[in-house]
């Protein structure tokens, strides 16, 4: 039997400046990501020590696909390349596709309570809310000391768990449906954990000084904030965290989320989507890293534009190899996935393969230029296109970001 095939490719050139932010999360998706899928919230690039290899450059600008064919493939497989390679920082937001939401991170149980109360008003779920918090940090962790974190593995495990909630809305008027999701993220191994970074902490201690207290008679039991640190002191201490992070530290994270649809905001128990992610990075010497990721998604049957869509299961895995030197970087990606759906006549399987490569070259200061290529190969019983290729240029100067 002849195997139907859809092949598309994206070639992209961009010029820009890399972000100089630090993240304790898994690295961002590859710069070589397909331009067809919905762009995720830009993740900060891991900070690089001075003289370290060129850090990852930001991904391509949104909306880079011209043909629409890649877009179809991307949607078909649930944004395979953009969401598989890393566990999202906020799985709930990712599952309902609300990456534009401003995420609130309550710093106390009181603040969390206020946020949760805001989720429900006049008997309905309120849309456009995103919350992320560490249950341990807000409760038992309030009194848990640094020594406990350093010496007790389960404390580290608990402290690194984050929970997320998010809501958004689709449709308008009588057709409005609130989409809500809850999620969990586990950082099981985290070589970027600043609390375990002796060099960073020692550097911070050397950079700061405890302020002298004022004279007078403050009552016993008074615990008050001290003077606000100067900008210079903050800068010195912050630099310790960016200077002492290994760009390709080993990490492993697992995430999961479940979503539900609430017509008109009315509360009801109904699973809409359920997803799990896992991703891991492995440093290969000083100049390379391997990133592996996997995702499973269950989407329950639903009505879309008046048509009933069957329930489906999607599974995908991707790998990325990054080679980075001071003046250049090379990135290679590959991935594959499959979707199974039951359309009343039986189970139907579709498959997709992704591949890509990118070369980045430093051109002075924090400016870089990159050349990217990515392609997709998919097989399905209805697709008749053998191959499609397109050329895409992206020109983006974002110096000083």
């Amino acid at each position, binding site marked *: 039997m002849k195997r139907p095939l859809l092949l598309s490719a994206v070639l992209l050139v961009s010029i820009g400046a890399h972000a100089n932010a630090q993240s304790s999360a898994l690295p961002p998706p590859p710069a070589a990501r397909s331009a067809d899928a919905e762009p995720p919230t830009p993740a900060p690039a891991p900070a690089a020590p001075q003289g370290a290899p060129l850090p990852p450059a930001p991904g391509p600008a949104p909306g880079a696909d011209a043909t629409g064919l890649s877009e179809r493939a991307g949607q078909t497989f649930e944004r395979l390349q953009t969401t598989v390679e890393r566990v999202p920082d906020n799985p709930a937001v990712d599952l309902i596709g609300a990456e534009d939401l401003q995420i609130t991170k309550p710093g106390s149980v009181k603040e969390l309570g206020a946020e949760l109360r805001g989720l429900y008003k006049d008997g309905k779920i309120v849309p456009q809310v995103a919350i992320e918090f560490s249950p341990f940090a*807000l409760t038992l962790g*309030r009194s848990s000391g*640094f020594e406990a974190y350093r010496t007790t593995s389960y404390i580290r495990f608990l402290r690194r768990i984050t929970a997320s909630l998010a809501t958004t809305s689709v449709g308008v008027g009588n057709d409005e449906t609130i989409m809500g999701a809850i999620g969990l993220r586990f950082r099981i191994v985290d070589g970027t954990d600043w609390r375990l970074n002796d060099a960073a*902490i020692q550097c911070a201690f050397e950079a700061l000084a405890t302020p002298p*207290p004022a004279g007078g008679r403050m009552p016993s039991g008074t615990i008050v*904030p*001290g003077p606000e640190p100067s900008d210079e002191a903050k800068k010195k201490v912050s630099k310790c965290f960016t200077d002492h992070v290994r760009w390709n530290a080993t990490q492993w994270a697992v995430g999961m989320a479940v979503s539900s649809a609430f017509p008109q905001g009315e509360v009801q128990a109904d699973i809409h989507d359920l997803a799990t992610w896992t991703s891991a990075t492995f440093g290969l010497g000083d100049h390379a890293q391997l990133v592996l990721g996997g995702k499973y998604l269950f989407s329950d049957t639903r009505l879309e534009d008046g048509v009933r869509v069957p329930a489906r299961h999607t599974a995908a895995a991707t790998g990325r190899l990054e080679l980075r030197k001071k003046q250049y970087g090379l990135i290679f990606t590959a991935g594959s996935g499959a979707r199974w759906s039951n359309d009343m006549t039986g189970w139907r399987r579709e498959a997709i393969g992704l591949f890509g490569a990118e070369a980045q070259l430093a051109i002075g200061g924090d400016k870089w230029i990159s050349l990217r290529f990515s392609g997709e190969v998919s097989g399905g019983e209805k697709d008749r296109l053998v191959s499609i290729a397109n050329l895409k240029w992206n020109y983006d100067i974002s110096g000083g970001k």
Partner: protein
Amino acid sequence: MSNTILFPAGAELRLRLSVGGNFPYKWQIYEYNGANTPEPLDNGSDGRGEGSTIATASKIEQGVQRRFVWSVAVVSNDDPIEVDVTGQVLDGKRLVGEVKGPITIKKPFTNCFVHLWVEGIP
């Protein structure tokens, strides 16, 4: 209500600081003199998980009140979060009393003061 901690006169006074949230911190403890001026007493840090947070403040005489204050700098690379800060008074390993309160820790570091009074009793 007084938060002054009553402590057996003649026993060695030990003072322990702990900061929640699993944050490393650096501290300096002062004792107020008769002119209400803070004088440095001891210092240390909890930056390598060694729990080096105890200061010794010699003995205390019956009926005498001594006033201490910790100046603390808590290092963080996390989003702002509220934690508990605790100052404790120990007789050997025995906990005699403590003061406790919340403080919000912000990156890259947050300063705070913890005041504690101790009075010698028979």
